[in-house]
């Protein structure tokens, strides 16, 4: 059980997983209630263009370009949603496909980065560097602060935006804050989960928690617990089975989801 912990890469991977998963799980509760899982998918996939640009300009660690691209895409989606009559779904599909296309064209110019592409797509515990762990620790502190400080606002804009407005909440500002928080969470989880599967740690623990909760407080607590468990179990099995970490964590999340679903059916 403790054997993998003697390797520094595993220590980094496990610490990162334990820092990111509760934040993902917490945000996930609001993401599923607001039907924003496709939004987080769009952010995740667009990040590939950020990675490609980073490698193109010769960055060894393309985290900066990845973060900038994700934030830019998130703000553009939100801005277009508010300023145009385009459907949110359409805007996201445009950004999603456009950014992937850009990323693939850039990658085809870059020679010898096939390994990197694979790691970014499916996640790799070996790829979690010191900078990722430090960034995750910073994110953990910052996001915990933002989420708990604005929990009332996030909850009320989730229940109904008009009601939120009538309660004196600055809905526009609260929405931007929510989206920026979500984007940072998604962008930093990419190393561990991979672009293809980044939404899983966000959505699945929250959905599993929904199966076993009556109150919102319970849903938040269970979501965090399921997220922590899945991230830990996934990271460890990635090590033991020599598999990419993204699919391992995702399958752990889905296993928890199935168990909660059975529990719910039995209880009924």
């Amino acid at each position, binding site marked *: 059980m403790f054997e993998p912990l003697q390797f520094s890469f595993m220590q980094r991977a496990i610490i990162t997983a334990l820092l990111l998963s509760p934040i993902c799980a917490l945000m996930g509760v609001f993401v599923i209630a607001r039907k924003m899982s496709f939004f987080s998918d769009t952010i995740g996939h667009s990040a590939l263009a950020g990675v490609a640009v980073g490698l193109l300009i010769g960055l060894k660690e393309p985290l900066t370009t990845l973060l900038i691209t994700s934030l830019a895409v998130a703000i553009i989606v939100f801005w277009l949603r508010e300023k145009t009559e385009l459907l949110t779904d359409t805007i996201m599909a445009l950004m999603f496909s456009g950014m992937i296309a850009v990323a693939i064209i850039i990658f085809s110019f870059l020679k010898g980065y096939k390994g990197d592409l694979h790691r970014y797509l499916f996640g790799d515990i070996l790829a979690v560097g010191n900078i990722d762990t430090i960034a995750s620790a910073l994110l953990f502190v910052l996001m915990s602060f933002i989420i708990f400080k604005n929990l009332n606002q996030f*909850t009320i804009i989730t229940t*109904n935006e008009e009601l939120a407005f*009538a*309660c004196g909440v600055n809905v526009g500002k609260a929405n931007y804050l929510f989206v920026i928080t979500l984007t940072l969470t998604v962008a930093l989880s990419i190393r561990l989960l991979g672009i293809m599967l980044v939404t899983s740690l966000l959505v699945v623990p929250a959905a599993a928690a929904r199966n076993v909760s009556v*109150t*919102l407080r319970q*849903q938040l607590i269970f979501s965090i617990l399921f997220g922590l468990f899945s991230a830990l179990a996934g990271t460890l099995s990635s090590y033991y089975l020599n598999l990419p970490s993204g699919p391992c964590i995702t399958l752990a999340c889905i296993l928890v989801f199935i168990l909660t679903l059975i529990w719910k059916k039995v209880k009924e």
Partner: protein
Amino acid sequence: MTTTSDIHNNPPYAIEIENLTVRYGNKDILKNINLKIKYGDFLAIIGPNGSGKTTLLKAILRIIKPDCGTIKIFGEEDINKIITKIGYVPQRLGFEKTLSITVREFLALRLPKTKNWFFHRFKFIDEKLKIARLGVTELLEKPLYLLSGGELQRVLIAFSLLGEPELLLLDEATEGVDFTAENLIYESLATLRKQIGLTVILVSHDLSMVSRQATNVVALSNGVVCCEGSPSEVYQSLNKAYGAHFITYSHHH
């Protein structure tokens, strides 16, 4: 209770609307609306579907931005300065099954000075709710998405009342609500008007439903005020102008 200083400090009307016009594309949804509502009044805005009732309510709240005209609430044009004094009950609100929020947790969001609902139990909500007498206390532990239409309306009114508003805006508050719940809602509003001088604006498609309580009625038709006055005055003039047609029309919707 009104004191002399209140009279001097307060503007004469709770709400003053002048030349309000709201357009959607090149269609006027509201045309040149002028309204004055006194403190403590119960104004019913009536009219058939599509007459601009909900738009008027949303324009008062500035959820919809007016194209021309001014709206002053308690003498103030900037909505952000007085938004905390307003309670709002939207029309036919639905809640997603995906969020397992209970009535108690939901109501806690409206309490003033609540820093973070997650760390509180809000036992005192029960006490506060007894004052409103809407029969919400027994619903507190229920998930919001499981409430029936009438239960949800009562919860939404209780929600807006917890903010201790001086002005309450209700959009079709009693639609889809059974007779008992409707009575509960109207009784509660009457008590609150008497106790705290609450000013109420209620949008309804049905004159007969609101005439028991309203002090004033404004009838809208195609975005203009077609008549206003006391409930009986409006009833008579609508009857004269449109015959039974207007009244029966509103009964069907």
